[in-house]
């Protein structure tokens, strides 16, 4: 960047970024997702994936899971800013390598090709509990649940074997053991 003549501030030294998973409990009301997503885009935070659905129909609560990367300072800000939103009840935040938390994502792969290729695909997916949801002579839809990067890897691997379409849910998270997050 050319050196600015004007007296604008210069960015300071950047810290290291890490991947975090945020779990946000919100009132399931109109516009709530827009508020959360708008907060991220408006403040320049990054969203790698986002999953949301109602989890308590009586209390009208939805649970949003967001995967993001940021420096410790940015991650702190994301939590604090989310907490400020009026329809947000609580916010959980986990580092991706946190051993006490399960992170899972579901993917649907559509494979087009001969039987033997589809077999190969199923084989490749073995570690991730593959389920065949649909099968024809020349195609199959395979469902797996795995970590984000495992799915990344699988999509790469299945490409030469006839993978033509991938659909992913984005990661969701749950703590291990009997304790719940609060």
């Amino acid at each position: 960047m050319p050196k600015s003549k004007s007296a604008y501030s210069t960015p300071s030294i950047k810290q290291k970024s890490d991947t975090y998973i945020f779990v946000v409990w919100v009132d399931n009301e109109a516009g709530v997702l827009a508020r959360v997503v708008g907060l991220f885009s408006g403040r320049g935070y990054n969203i790698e994936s986002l999953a949301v659905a109602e989890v308590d129909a009586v209390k009208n609560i939805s649970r949003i899971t967001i995967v993001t990367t940021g420096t410790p300072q940015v991650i702190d800000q994301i939590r604090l800013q989310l907490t400020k939103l009026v329809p947000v009840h609580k916010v959980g935040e986990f580092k991706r390598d946190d051993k006490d938390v399960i992170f899972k994502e579901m993917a649907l792969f559509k494979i087009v090709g001969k039987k033997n290729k589809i077999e190969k695909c199923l084989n490749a997916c073995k570690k991730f509990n593959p389920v065949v949801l649909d099968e024809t002579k020349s195609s199959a839809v395979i469902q797996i649940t795995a970590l984000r990067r495992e799915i990344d890897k699988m999509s790469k691997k299945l490409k030469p074997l006839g993978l033509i379409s991938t659909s992913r849910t984005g990661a969701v998270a749950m703590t291990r053991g009997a304790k719940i997050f609060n």
Partner: protein
Amino acid sequence: MPKLLTGAEIVFKCLEDQKVNHIFGYPGGAVLPIYDELKNHPSIKHILVRHEQGAGHAAEGYARSTGKPGVVLVTSGPGATNVVTALTDAYMDSVPMVCISGQVPTHLIGTDAFQECDTTGITRPCTKHNWLVKDINELSDVMHEAFKVATTGRPGPVLIDIPKDIQFAKAKYKKPKKDKKLNGKSHNKFSANEIDQLINLINKAKKPIIYSGGGVINSGPKASEALRKFVELTGFPITSTLQGLGAYPGDDNQFLGMLGMHGTYEANNAMHDCDLLINIGARFDDRITGKIDDFSPNSKKVHIDIDPSSINKIIKVDLAIVGDVTKVIDKVNRTIVKNGNGKSNKPNIAKWWEQIQKWRNKNSLNFINSEDSIKPQHAVQRLYELTKNKDTYVTTEVGQHQMWAAQHYKFNKPNRWMTSGGLGTMGYGLPAAVGVQVAHPEKLVIDIAGEASVLMTMQEMSTAVQYNLPIKIFILNNQYMGMVRQWQELLHEKNYSESYSEALPDFMKMADAYGCLGIKADDPSELDEKIQEMVDYNGPVIFDCHVDPNENCFPMIPSGKPHNQMILGPNDQEENKIKGKGKALV
């Protein structure tokens, strides 16, 4: 059967129960049912503005000068979009404001109906929260919650979008619920341990400074009292942000003046060299910190703020106390007194005060006065001298005049100084003065203005005339967008690109056209007498004060520079000419 009320009636019921006395607004198709209902509620006075932005800023002035939320009423579409600047301004400066907007009927939403816009979508990033009310049964609760959200925690603007059919629909009215916990959004749970840690730091400090901000004002007049007590007990020097001016008396010896980009030499150097920095209700804005990596490099930093997201946002601090300023400082004061003043460390900081005195001797707000032309700083100083014995309220526009007002007008009470700091909105001051005067009809209200800014919302002069609001618009007319010109002079090789105000209107004729008094001054020897005429006149005044067009606002820290690298005014530049020290920094 309980009585059913229309949506419009419910709106007013809520306003009455929220003790609203004034609303600033502008009618239109989508709010006509509400306007129709206005006549039945004599305790609520509607102020008709001339542009919805004016309504917003007037509500801000009203709120800042009273501590009560300002209320705005606008129509759908253009009415709502016109108020966006004011909402953003209020959001940036944490001003409590409740904006009610009309919307097209619910069955037309999403059809690009006449004067439809996605108001909640547009205002989502510039409000604390907003609501589109699609069910009449929710209207009362939403209205009450809106007031609560606007006024609790860190205050700010909210918006309620009410479709026209909802204004006609009927429902039961619900009174505000008492003390319903607001979703845990308001924070006041600091620990005794945190207070003890602060006391410990205070006792150990050799070079302390208190840096207070708008949060002290927002916390209410008691916060200013507590702050004064705290400064007295500790003997510490105190500086203030632009928004915090007035919380501590501007003419007191322990006050170092404003800090930041156009702050005093002593305040900025003390910030840079201190070993303990106590931030009370301020947010480490970039106009305050300068270069982050070099900001106050050797100090322990303490941050007292009601908004947890302000902590560590920009500057990492050593001790954070999240809570209401009044409560926290009161507790600190009581602890200091309990521990016995004997343990005070005033002797520890005697050397520090000597150093501060040396910086003070620079007299960094000094300027070279003239007998031929009115210097803008001189004009503000004279205005101050001639109005300081009245309980004067000052608003400003944005630019050099705003900084000169902050530097040379000394405030002794909170809520007397209304300026657009966070957003820096030209056109804020005149409508804000309207709002202040509505709240304080008997007080002297002055907008210290620039000729460019004031033209952005000049039409609100009609509002002032209509309601006999005797606001004084004191224009420091330098024929330039002075602040732009200054940056161009110092940083863009004097390429004065589009910053000269060609074809300025004749402000005397303008005053005449609006039906208020016009006063013009260009001779320093007549200045006092004319200011006095303005102050004595019982009615709105436009004062066209012609000042030296080439004056620059000093001191100045070029942003991106640390606090101890300031450019000082012409006197000092003369001294440093050979070294070229000041210039090299630009």
